[in-house]
């Protein structure tokens, strides 16, 4: 086994093209896993949050603590991203877990992907060439050898609305069964923008059914609840050996209803 310390993006990409190499940033996902060779991505200068005119650019090895404490992100879209960070793991782990790692590991329980989906974030992937894709697309595709996540880009288009992040777990430090992010904007009493994303009981995904159903409608408590419950019944739920499918759907329906009400009817 080897441990490489690239200091440039080019070097990192070349090391990652070697067979059986894995990128490491925080390193928290390697318990009990056997790996051949590791490439440390934390010395490439990818630790930043840049507030640009149209976009917020977040370097892939920016830690969750840094996201949580970022003034820029706290003032953006009701602070959904820092909110999702504050309920992620615990203090010591937040100090090392990176935004890139939280996405790249594709864990069902990862908090950041649904929050980033609600913000319509994009992921920049560096390899021999650079490519950028929506975060939803990322979860449907694979990285080629030599490729790694280098940046997360959040468009600043819509960010004045209300948002919330819900994490449902048995205890505060347990893996969440359901993570839910909702972002919405309204004009008078009409829903003008709605983005809902979920993970935990299913791989990270937008719930387009709710978004399409409610877009442009007048805000009405019963309408929100009906849309939430209908979506919870339709979503693909992964098999769990601890919780029944019925239970998970019921909880998801309740959480969705609460989140929609909070975002659209309070404040």
């Amino acid at each position, binding site marked *: 086994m080897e441990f490489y310390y690239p200091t440039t993006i080019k070097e990192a990409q070349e090391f990652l093209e070697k067979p059986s190499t894995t990128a490491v940033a925080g*390193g928290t996902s390697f318990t009990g896993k056997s790996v051949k060779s590791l490439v440390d991505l934390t010395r490439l200068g990818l630790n930043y949050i840049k507030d640009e005119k149209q976009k917020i650019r977040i370097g892939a090895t920016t830690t969750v603590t840094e996201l949580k404490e970022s003034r820029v992100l706290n003032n953006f879209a009701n602070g959904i991203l820092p909110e999702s960070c504050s309920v992620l793991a615990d203090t010591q782990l937040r100090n090392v877990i990176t935004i890139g790692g939280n996405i790249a590991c594709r864990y069902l329980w990862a908090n950041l992907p649904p929050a980033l989906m609600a913000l319509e974030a994009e992921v920049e992937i560096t390899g021999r060439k650079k490519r950028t894709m929506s975060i939803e697309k990322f979860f449907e595709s694979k990285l080629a050898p030599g490729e790694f996540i280098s940046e997360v880009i959040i468009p600043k288009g819509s960010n004045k609305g209300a948002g919330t992040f819900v994490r449902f777990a048995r205890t505060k430090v347990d893996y969440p069964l359901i993570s839910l992010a909702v972002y919405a904007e309204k004009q008078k009493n009409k829903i003008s923008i709605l983005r809902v994303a979920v993970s935990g009981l299913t791989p990270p995904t937008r719930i387009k059914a709710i978004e399409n159903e409610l877009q442009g409608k007048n805000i009405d408590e019963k309408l929100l609840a009906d849309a939430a419950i209908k979506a919870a019944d339709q979503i693909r739920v992964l098999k769990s050996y601890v919780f029944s499918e019925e239970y998970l759907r019921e909880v998801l329906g309740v959480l969705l209803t609460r989140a929609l009400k909070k975002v659209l009817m309070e404040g």
Partner: protein
Amino acid sequence: MEITCKINNVEKRLVFEPNEKLLDALRREGYYGVKFGCGNGDCGACTILVNGKAVKSCIMFAAQAKDKEITTIEGLSTPEHPHPVQKAFVDAGAVQCGYCTPGMIISAKALLDKNTKPTEDEIKEALEGNLCRCTGYVKIIDAVKLASQRMRGGKR
């Protein structure tokens, strides 16, 4: 493989297998205050400071420590002159079996280094990654409050 890093303000050369965790490398070097609890990043008994930030050394590769500044509980003080957080843990009765204590104290120190007057919620948040099976946490939180008071008052 080998790396150099600073441990408790002393330049050190660490030798280890590339897949070894920092916890194991530190204990082999004699830093026994870094405890093995779960090995999964759950319990926090292995908490150390890396560049001033509390992290769990059981879930970090030793190789990641290259060129970093590490502080373990041994680096806080001497038996004759305990760190104010250590003194407060003793005075508040926050130590029972003691296994979680080094990690707790490191986490508390990391908090007090950047926030001299934390609220109870901030203390709980700072210690949420440290499990204690004995105390029920009440006296640990009391101890951190006491340490914060004393450190602000300049008393040890």
